[in-house]
């Protein structure tokens, strides 16, 4: 194994560890983020649950929704599972069944970092993802949920 491979693996492991530590440290609001090209500005919490569960497949303009999620252990992942009332195991089983039923062509795309989430939004203009409010970057459009933005009283995604 080359030195560069070891370094890459170590960095990935450290990124994962940082993600877990971040999850321990962060308990605040999580933003629902889409591409700036997406015309949608707000969703209800019920719509959000349906979108993230793959029950709602398309945006109002008819474009298919692509779900991008963070890897296991991250705060965004924990919030996602909380929204769907699922355990990690339930979530994996659920999506495996969704694919097998033909309800969706693939499981949600899993990414390791906020940077990759941002990149995914650029590559997939119809993507939606959850981002810790402190990690929201330019190039990410934050949706209102039930009329509230992250940080507002009554914001439901945290």
């Amino acid at each position: 194994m080359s030195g560069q491979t070891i370094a890459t693996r170590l960095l990935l492991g450290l990124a994962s560890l940082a993600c877990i530590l971040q999850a321990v440290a962060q308990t605040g609001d999580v933003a629902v983020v889409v591409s700036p090209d997406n015309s949608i500005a707000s969703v209800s919490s019920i719509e959000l649950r349906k979108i993230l569960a793959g029950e709602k497949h398309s945006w109002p303009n008819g474009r298919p929704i692509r779900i991008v999620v963070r890897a296991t252990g991250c705060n965004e992942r924990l919030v996602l599972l909380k929204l769907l009332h699922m355990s990690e195991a339930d979530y994996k089983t659920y999506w495996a069944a969704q694919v097998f039923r033909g309800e969706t062509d693939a499981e949600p795309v899993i990414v390791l970092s906020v940077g990759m989430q941002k990149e995914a939004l650029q590559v997939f203009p119809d993507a939606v993802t959850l981002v810790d409010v402190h990690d929201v970057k330019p190039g990410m459009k934050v949706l209102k949920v039930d009329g509230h933005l992250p940080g507002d009283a009554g914001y439901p995604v945290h």
Partner: protein
Amino acid sequence: MNARQNKRRLGQVLIGLFALSGSVWAQSPTGQETMAQLVQEIKQLQQQDHDLQERIRLLEARQVPTPPANMANANPAPVPAQPAEQIPPREVPSPAQTDWHQVHGIQWHGYGEVNYKVLDQRQPELGTGGFVPGSAGNFYTGDFDLFLSSKINDKTNVLSEIAFGEGAHQDFSIDLERFLLKYDFNDHLKMSFGRYQTGIGYYNAGFRSASWVLTAIDRPLIMEFPGDGGLLPLRSVGVSITGLVPSGKLGLNYLFEYGSSDTVRQDLNGSGTVDDENNGNQLNVGLFVRPDVLPGLRIGGSFYHDKISDSTLSSRIRISQSIVNAHVVYTAHGYEILNEGFLIRHAPENSRIAFNMPAFYSQISKRFGPIRPFFRFQYVNTNKNNTIFDDVGLRYGPSFGARYELNDYVAFKAQLDHTLRGGKPNLNGLQLQLVFTF
């Protein structure tokens, strides 16, 4: 990047990480437990890293080409505490430069099972999936499924399910269980063309054929495939259309199917008789609601109609077959509560005779960590004078067992069945099953 730069970057990351972990550690009342948890999760994540690298590689190969994002036109909602960094839009290839087949590729999944079954009655009963009736008990493989799907564009994809099924003498046959061209225009109009599993009730559309997705080892008898002694036409070739009806919080959905079934069913009594029902074209319509007030709840029903005949009789009298279904299903919070009722009506043409045959099943399970115990009660009552289902008669009884997830890809199931059969001794069975996906 040279080795020195690598070392310097690693050092920076480690220092940052140490500082971060230190601040978190100081806030934690149970530091040792937390650290033990973290170490465990790191091990899991290392494995996931490997999986994710593979997934990223696939993702990069499947990137949907789009024109560069126009950030100037974006109108993002206000965001608290944003850094001022502005990333230039990523350059992506134009659609004209892309070979869609190479970009999207084919996704595939495999599903397999290994079974052991023992019955307390040696009087012949139908052997399915390789089980030999009359034996004290034996191993068999059941179905090995290959599921393939390929995206043609954002709204269109092709899927197929190919099953290698074991026969009574460890011979194997290949069956194209599903083969569909799917076009999802939007949430209100989703169309499938090809060979599909009919939407009679919930179970058939909800669980498909691989045992991996089933909680119990086998399907309820009323939802069993005809080749395994089931009663209903569960597959058809034609068009299936479904979608959401604008209905607010009610979440009303519709289903419309028109196609040609060709149900060939084996008699359950082990006589070896095979009925080819020579179905005419079938119509199946259904409605169901998924109310917002209780996510996971589905209430609905369907009506199926076609004309069949009994190939075992010399006369080819056509029989009008109607199947009415009602179901109430709840799947959320780890619960799986399935309740379905059926009424099968067979009315021979030019006759005043009609057979109304009821059936139902209820299944409840709840997941506790890796284990999901389940209980099922089923009931089928067909008329002995109905020559198509005369082998079934009255059958009812409970099944209970559990499914244990060994990991994300392998599960073990155990199930006990007690079946009361009209005019025959009761049937008790033990089934064990190892299911896996890859």
